[in-house]
């Protein structure tokens, strides 16, 4: 018997598998134990594949994105009911294994200083208020829970209504009175009128820590910058999809004396299908550069997501594409989500439904606890 066991042992050492056919075991306890030991050895050799142990591919970044404060409460010398901090990231967006997201991005809802052409299915959310920016602002806050507003002064463009700066400032004052959320003051995009408008707006909003949107190298940005410095506001430099020029411009703004914690970059958000891939790459490159320690790009980013509405897929009636009531907001919220994943911290948005969706997505991403869910239902998709 001993000999047989030795033979068996020898045989097992060389083989990976053991198949026993028609085996009847008639043995006492001792012999069985011995056999089991040998078998265990053989089985161990067969299962020589070690279980895989994952370790998260974490990386350290030497840079940190600057934090920018939006709005000033009474305690800060302003009259806003609330203020927000954006930025502060220490790793790429939603790389939870490297760091937890710091500040939740803020959605600033669009208000215009005149009735602007909007598709019917969007316009109907703002009945009777489009002639009155203050009422429009109130509706945004009361009905659509706006945490922040962007007041776009589009009528000041000489080619639109050429509203005087004085009159425009009156509108801004009205809105400041009407609502108590932090504000972004947007120009019309006219490079000659905007510097004058934005610097007067800075004066009117003194103490409120508003955001002046936007400045670019082809306008008299120094005037705006100086007004922002004097009245302690933030600025949005806009450079379309070009990280190199963005860096250069930020450097120039800092040279003029704008503090780094008062800058929010806008690299232009093209809607889905209208250049969003350039926006993604521009934003990702800037964010990575900032994290790697480039102080001129370690800034929070703004996304004028409402641009998505210029896509005909968002507003046009088209039987083949399905109802635009759903298609439109989806176009805007998808654009917003992609900007969010590319690093945007501040969103300017139009449609109440897209805003709702963005908020729900952010609710599920800005969570404290990432512990593994125990009851994973996913495989049941097969039975849906």
């Amino acid at each position, binding site marked *: 018997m001993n000999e047989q066991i030795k033979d068996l042992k020898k045989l097992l050492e060389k083989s990976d598998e053991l198949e026993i056919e028609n085996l009847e075991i008639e043995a006492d306890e001792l012999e069985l134990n011995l056999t089991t030991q040998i078998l265990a050895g053989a089985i161990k050799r067969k299962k020589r*594949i070690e*279980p*895989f142990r*994952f370790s*998260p*591919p974490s990386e350290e970044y030497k840079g940190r994105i600057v934090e920018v404060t939006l709005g000033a409460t009474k305690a800060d010398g302003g009259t806003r009911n609330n203020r927000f901090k954006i930025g502060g990231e220490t790793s790429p967006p*939603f*790389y*939870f*294994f490297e760091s937890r997201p710091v500040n939740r991005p803020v959605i600033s809802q669009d208000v215009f200083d005149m009735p602007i*052409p909007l598709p019917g299915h969007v316009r109907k*959310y703002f009945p009777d208020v489009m002639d009155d920016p203050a009422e429009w602002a109130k509706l945004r806050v009361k009905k659509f829970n706006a945490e922040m507003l962007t007041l776009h002064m589009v009528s000041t463009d000489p080619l639109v209504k050429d509203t005087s700066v004085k009159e425009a400032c009156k509108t801004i004052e009205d809105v400041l009175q009407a609502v108590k959320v932090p504000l972004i003051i947007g120009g019309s*995009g006219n490079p000659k009128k905007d510097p004058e408008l934005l610097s007067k707006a800075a004066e009117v909003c003194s103490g409120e820590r508003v955001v002046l949107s936007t400045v670019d190298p*082809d306008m008299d940005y120094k005037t705006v910058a100086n007004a922002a410095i004097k009245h302690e506001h933030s600025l949005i430099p806009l450079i*379309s999809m070009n990280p*190199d020029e963005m860096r250069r411009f930020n450097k120039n703004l800092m040279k003029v004396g704008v503090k780094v914690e008062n800058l929010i970059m806008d690299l*232009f958000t*093209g809607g889905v*299908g*209208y*250049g*969003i*891939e350039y926006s*993604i*790459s521009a934003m990702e*490159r800037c964010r*990575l*550069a900032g994290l*790697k320690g*480039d102080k001129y790009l370690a800034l929070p980013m703004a996304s004028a997501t409402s*641009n998505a509405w210029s896509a005909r897929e968002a507003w*046009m009636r088209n039987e*083949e*594409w*399905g*109802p*635009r*009531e*759903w*298609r439109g907001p*989806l*176009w805007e919220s*998808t654009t917003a989500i*992609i900007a969010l994943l590319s690093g945007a911290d501040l969103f300017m948005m139009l449609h*109440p*439904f897209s805003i*709702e969706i963005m908020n*729900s*997505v952010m609710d*599920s*991403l800005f969570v404290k606890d*990432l512990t593994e*869910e125990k009851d*994973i*239902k996913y*495989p049941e*998709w*097969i*039975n*849906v």
Partner: protein
Amino acid sequence: MLRILPRKKISNIPNGLMFRMARLTALQLYKYLPAKNCGECGETTCMAFAIQLLERKKKARDCPELTEKGLERLIEVITPPVRDIELGVGENAITVGGEEVMYRHELRFFSPTPFFIDVSDLMSEKEIKKRISFVEKFEIERIGVKLKLQGISIRCASNDPKKFRETVQKIKDNFSGTLILCSFNPDVLKAGVEVVRDRKPLLYAANMENWEHVLKIAREYDTPLVIYSNSIDELGTLVREISARDFNKIILDPGIEVGDSGLARTLNKLVMLRKSALNGVKELQYPLMCSTTAIWMNFNGKKGNPGEIENLADEEIVEELLRERMSGENPGNNSMNSDTDEMKFAYQESTIASILLDRFVSLLVFHSIDVWSILPLITLRQNIYTDPRVEPAVEAKIYEIGSPDENSPVFVTTNFALTYFNVSGDLESAKISCYLLVVDTEGLAATVSVAAEKITSSGVKTALKESNIENRVKHRKLIIPGVAARLKGDFEDATGWEIMVGPQDSSEISNFLKENW
């Protein structure tokens, strides 16, 4: 129409973040080739073949001169860190994965995520036929490219091999494209794959319990295989087991989770998986897939509570949306509640899918067949997977639409490919004979080029001059895009032509001409 331009000016920032050099160079690959310049592969030289290999236009096997060993070595070198897996056969064959980078600016993303539409063996015959026809007819043209859906994913909700076999047979008879067969029951998978073995379907899925059986089927029928686990440890362990048995046609499904922090965990996992693959963790160097059908788990046809995103909208807003929907634009004939719910789920599915698309998912099974919920996704897919080295531009010159004469209008637009295709498409469908002057805006769309000042008076002036349009029309009127209205004065001063501001969108051109021309 698209032209390949040198990569945009290389940035001096940020260090190491410039367009990263490709992982390999043609010169490196050349060393693995026979250097005979025999021309058998269709290229004149081995160096040219090496370049085609890098661009994924040729495969290693296209070189007939390589020894078996040599071929093996070459394949090892060119295999990307996220392996490329082939599904289906013939003209329906699809490459999944084959990715090299985290960020598209580092090189490019290679294989656009294929979309498979979900079908279950418990769906009615009518519903299944509707879904087949949806996939077959789906085609949306953008920038001269026809965007399509890639196939049908059939799942066995009945867990009955016989029922599944019948459904697969039915779909096989009515649909010629690529298939995925889904069940965790090996008997079911076997019953299905027997029917469509010649299609080389993707088998879904092996898990910790069934993998030995499922692997056996995949090997027997020579099909690729999905491994599912929500745990990365288990995924890696299964890959170790399966690849140790010389099987590498693997796609990984890490699952998506619903619930409080589910989306965050899902996102986190997807990023870690891609990053680990690029870092050389060989157990994880396989493409990823997900099925957003899971989103519909809480949908019961009438009332539902979307798991992940609660309170999708203010009830009031939904009611409003619905009223408009009911009031004529797109009359639905379902009951109000179930219709809204279905819309909400479709919206949510699309939303989650956009996140997955952005975060490295290389294959997607999608349930909704509402065009509006798929439209942004396939558009986004086209965007993300565009080669950043190719400018989406058409040649800046004068184009003739229809048969224009000396009295025909002249329109100005940008050379962004999409703008050009939209505008010329609108002009053609409105049967307007005219000239379309395409100005070089560095491939930027109209709105963007106005904001970024890429459409300028001097640019328009040059384009006018080079087009020689002065000698082809009698009038001196130029119609510019509505979004460029503020540049009217500048253009007039620079060109001396009368500038007419066109509509905001080219779909309005026909009406515009009726009133103004």
